């Protein structure tokens, strides 16, 4: 259960973080709704990458050092 919770929260955090970033971007530069769209998609991508990292499918960032 702990692993499942970890993976799902990783994906949710990705989308939420991306959406929040896009919303702030739109507010600052008044480019609504493009920032929200683009950053949500990017956040989703980053979330999927984080899920794959957490599951051990993909190499971690720290291995590049």
């Amino acid at each position: 259960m702990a692993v499942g919770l970890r993976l799902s929260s990783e994906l949710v955090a990705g989308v939420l973080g991306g959406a929040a970033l896009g919303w702030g971007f739109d507010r600052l530069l008044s480019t609504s709704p493009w920032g929200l769209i683009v950053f949500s998609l990017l956040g989703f991508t980053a979330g999927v990458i984080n899920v794959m990292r957490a599951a051990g499918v993909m190499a971690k960032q720290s291995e590049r050092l």
Partner: protein
Amino acid sequence: MAADPIHQFQITKLFSLGHIGGQEIAFTNSSAYMFAAVGIIAILMLAPSRQLVPGRFQSIAELSYEFVANMIRSTAGKEGLKFFPLVFSLFMFIAVSNLVGIIPYTFTVSSHLIVTVTLAMLVFLTVLIYGLSKNGLKFFKLFVPSGVPIYILPLVVFIEVISFFLKPVSHSVRLFANMLAGHIALKVFASFIAMLGAIGVVGWFGAVLPLGLTIALTALELLVAFLQAYVFAILTCIYLNDAIHPGH
């Protein structure tokens, strides 16, 4: 009759500590429960007399010490032990405040996003500053994967940067969402008992079902309260391990 399931998360001001820049600094029920959690930990850690054959409280203190020390040793290695105070404080604070929050009519500190974000940012900034001071500018190689064609490199680096900064988000949202959802579910099922009980004799028999569910949920919440503290601590260890031993 239906109790508001969100009401338990209300922040109320107990007394004011003064103003900073026109913003009132209030001592709230949340702060009171944070102090209570710290007080309980302090009593647990300091009060028991040290005996060769440990008593009940001394056993709890020693067990929790061993538990966290083993967790750090197994995930971050021997060098990770210099972060023992940080991980132990985080684990004990979250575990105790979650367990206190299970008691009816109490307030759960970690059911507020701002609290968990603060804890997660503490870990994130520790890892970031320690990683930067240990690896120097090589730290930024984190964001540049090798063997990527130059024309999509900016996009890939951008996504890598976002995914790096999502770590504290998922770290904090996990704890917050678990505590919030668990307490709302408990409250909703408990209010079903009162609703059914108000119908009459038939309702009393019907109320047995949500009562059983509430008891089962309370047991589950007890597990979740401890498990989330454990997950938070072990993820802290994993992030610290990334900073201490890069390339593993």
